[in-house]
């Protein structure tokens, strides 16, 4: 399908000015405020973007490409969906499963069994996806 460029919004300039002001205020505070660490923050901000663009995204794009070539059509969507849900759960689970913040004096921080919970979650996600793919496959075959 085509995708024609559109004329800029009338709100473009006001949004640019407001956004520029907010970002300038934030950059100024990050650089000169008390209790900040500008060098470390800059490294982490740029590093996060680079880590996504150069490491995470290529891996996900490669997995998606293989999925499209290896799996039959109905299974692709279910596998893709399961991958997306598992990826999101894993992303927010890393700090708790790793127990990186655990403190010996405070058992109320990270009080659960973070090995069993996520495994059950992933099992549920992939079982649902497998059942869904199987159902779609049967429907397509009929």
């Amino acid at each position: 399908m085509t995708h024609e460029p559109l004329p800029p919004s009338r709100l473009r300039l006001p949004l640019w000015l407001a956004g520029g002001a907010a970002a300038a205020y934030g950059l100024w505070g990050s650089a000169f405020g008390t209790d900040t660490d500008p060098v470390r923050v800059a490294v982490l901000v740029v590093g996060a973007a680079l880590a996504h663009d150069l490491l995470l995204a290529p891996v996900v794009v490669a997995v998606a490409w293989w999925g499209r070539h290896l799996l039959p059509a109905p299974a692709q969507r279910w596998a893709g969906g399961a991958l997306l849900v598992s990826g999101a759960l894993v992303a927010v689970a890393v700090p708790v499963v790793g127990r990186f913040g655990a403190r010996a004096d405070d058992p109320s921080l990270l009080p659960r069994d973070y090995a069993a919970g996520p495994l059950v979650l992933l099992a549920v996600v992939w079982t649902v996806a497998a059942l869904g793919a199987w159902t779609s496959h049967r429907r397509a075959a009929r």
Partner: protein
Amino acid sequence: MVRRPRDLLTAPLRTPLPTPPDRLRVGPLREGAWSRDDADTERRASWLGLWLGVTFTVCLLTGLWSHAVQHDWLPVPSRPRDLYRVTQGLHVVTGLAAVPLLLAKLFVVYHRLFTWPPAKDLGHAVERASLLLLVGGSLFQLGTGVMNVAGWYAFGFFFTTVHYWAGWVTIGALLVHVGCKLPYARRGTRRTTTAADPTASSRRAFLTATGVATGAVVLTTVGATVSPLAPVSVLAARDPRRGPQGLPVNRTAAAAGVTRVDPSYRLVVVGATTVELSLDDLRAMAQTTARLPISCVEGWSADADWTGVAVRDLLALVGSGTDRQVRVDSLQRTGRYRSSVLQPPHVRDPITLLALRIDGEPLHPDHGYPVRLIAPNRPGVMQTKWVGRVVVL
């Protein structure tokens, strides 16, 4: 040709930039390297952008509110009792919900990173450069936020101020981005009833999966503050039912260095006059019991029945009214939160307490034995524990 002032202002942005030599156009930059349907990409990106816009806006507003409350920027009312609990719960929930939305959005538009030429004109170059701040800033805010909620402070800086400033940078970059993309987002979220769209069903599946992922992240974490959901929140770093006396703790007595309280302990109250009160003196005063939440800035909250002396009753003892600020100092020697200030609305509130008991029992050391401050609509870090002095300012 008549030009409006607005056009003159943006004219430099239309300065064309040279196209780099074609031999640099390799790998993912090659023509046809990405088989993507532009209209489909626009629709996916528009819906995800809209949802991200909602979560980021709620996250920004609740975050600013939390910052304002902690820095006494506003006259904050003492009621409703659960207001801060709700706003901070929303802050953390919308931040977590944004994680799958952001990852899905970046996946959808990733191939645009390899646009050729890299920048058509100066405006395009500025727009693309601002994306580094938007993408990096968003990943940084969500990443360090998720770590912070789990008590993982490996980033090595004081989270609160850095999160505040980086929030302004990220939201500024987002406004610039919205300014560029608004017409496309409008077109992309319009429901069309024209000719059959072969991409529609796969797009629906993708957006549904993103919605399911967002719901799954919320359900598995929100139980840290919505206690009925605690059993299913298997990824939450806190359980509002667990901790000493059934209540989580953020700073323990051991961490604060207040493990032993001397029998000669006296609460010093400084107003028009000064009095020193022993624990027995405090227990002999009129006791108030109130059900109040600890609402942590890290997004968990839990209710308990607190019993103790109303702050305004203490002020009456030293001949002070309730129209002044009151500083509450902890016995802990160090720490950022060893002291907090009560504003007049909180001072006046009859359930702003110096608590001696929790659910009928004397306070556990980790909950601030012998005496802690507990007040309605107040961040947990300002509910000073191990109180040694109360000073009318």
